[in-house]
């Protein structure tokens, strides 16, 4: 595993990157196709929400459809 310090450095770099990319919305005007997508940090927000939503949906589907992986061999 990575040492504690380098792990922390990676965290800090990642968080800085996220902040940087969102704050770029202040400086660069994004062209919008359907108005809502031109709002501040829309893609970041939308991507985040969609992923969480997809994971939750998968989990729910998984509840019904998951089986042990020797299911078909029995």
């Amino acid at each position, binding site marked *: *595993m990575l040492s504690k310090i380098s792990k922390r450095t990676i965290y800090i770099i990642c968080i800085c*990157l*996220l902040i940087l*990319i*969102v704050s*770029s*919305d202040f400086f*660069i*005007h*994004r*062209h919008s*196709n*359907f108005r809502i*997508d031109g709002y501040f*940090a829309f*893609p*970041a*927000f*939308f*991507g*985040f929400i*969609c*992923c*969480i*939503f*997809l*994971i939750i*949906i*998968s*989990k729910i*589907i*998984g509840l019904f*459809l*998951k*089986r*042990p*992986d020797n*299911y*078909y061999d029995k």
Partner: protein
Amino acid sequence: MINNMIIHPGILLILFGILIPLLGDKFKKIITFIIPALCFILVLQLPHGMYLNYEYMSYNLTFMRVDDLSKIFSLVFTIMIIFSSIFSLNQNNKTEISTAFIYGGSAIGAVLSGDFISLFVFWEIMAISSTIIIWMGNKDAYKSGLRYLTVHLFGGVVLLIGIIGYISLKESIDFSLIDNTNIYAYLILIGVLINAGAPPFSGWISDSYPSASWSGTVFLSAFTTKTAVYVLIRGYPGTELLIYIGMFMIFYGIVYAILENDMRRILSYSIINQVGFMITGIGIGTEMALNGAASHAFAHIIYKALLLMSAGSVFYITGKTKCTDLGGLYKTMPITMVCGIIGALSISAFPFTSGFVTKSMISQSAVYENYIFIWFLLLAASAGVFLHAGIKFPWFVFFQKDAKLKAKDPPKNMQFAMISLSIICILIGIFPNILYQMLPYDVSYAPYTWDHVIFQLQLLLFSGLAFFLMLKYLKRTLTLTLEFDWFWRKFSKILIKEFDIHAEKTATNIINKYIKIFDKTIKTLYKHHGPSGILGRTWPTGNMAFWTTVILASYLIIYLL
């Protein structure tokens, strides 16, 4: 094969595929290098037009129709064969490479066909040769290969019925834009969609591809689904139904890949997902959307091969494919990891990779056609792709916990293939015009604008954040997820068992009943004709004399009267 010095690259490949088993080992290695490269050059210099026309049973077959669309597909198929052959040089099973040549050659043949009959012939050769490649795999391969073959033969039959009907309706075997106002066009569509992995037949991809060998899966990933995409682009552009089928495939792929544990099955699900993007593009059907679908197929074949090579290398070295057994390989397999990450970034359409310049054409065309809802769904799907393939695959295979596996980077030839494909991915990403100038329609789209790059980066990076925040919910378990194929893998079995019990009862009842009737008949016969039966016993002679006298007497009386 040769007609005015035009050589059919597909048939050339098929011929050498048949020849390979007859050649010595040393010669074989040279051929696996040279022939695909030769085919690549052949395809590259093909002039546009119709070649190799033959008259057969009053039908005019066209084996080569060269235009931008067929050229870009055959070009990427040959690139694919070149690098996959180099990748698979260490494969001990020699049947695989020879079958792969036949498979790839028939895919090129199908793409170049100008008429339905030759298309169908190459289509079926593909189905059979790919089944043989699957059979070269692990112990489950025989069964899943059979299931694969059944689905494809079924699809082939539906396609054939459609083709026969369509030919008799139109009195022409030319394959071009299909007039979809008749039922035969829809039968052809169903046959083609089965090959594309559309619902409810999506199960065959994730069922059969992962049971092939470490090199076989790489070959399999490219041809079958993308040939179907080609036929759809050619025959069914702008069929609105395809948008919804495509959208379904996109989300189906994401959800199942999120739940999956086996790394090659994750990548198989993402094939369904990516083909969904292409099919949505075909459904939108504008020039830009079709360009997007064709270029996305091109880019997809390259980065999917790259991803499966990276997964294949891990499988080749460690012998494991399940995420629960893998992890921490970044230290021991750094080159495989870097190539895998480049493939993962490309599939997620990260800026400066090939996916970015192709997928965005499809979503942009949704904007122009005012499919607002579809555009938002495509956006959500882009985030989902990063989630299920872009991060999940590298994270669970190369990072996560240290599984303490003894590993090293794979042999040089495998590294060469992976590095070359990584370079192609990045090259297309940085210089999209290389790809754009090969597309069937003129491209007036510029992918690299500041707001597009930032839009995509925000979307993807925050999807990444969601992944790591939700990591504890994504913990891999030793499970599989049921699909549509449950109906023919399990339900049919249950059905047969159920009917078996009743059938046995019914059969015994029926048999018993007839045995009773038979017994009764025999008994009656015995009663009358047996030794003591009225018709069977010996009659005394006196009896006969008596009856003769009676008859004679009655005759005399009648005469006298």
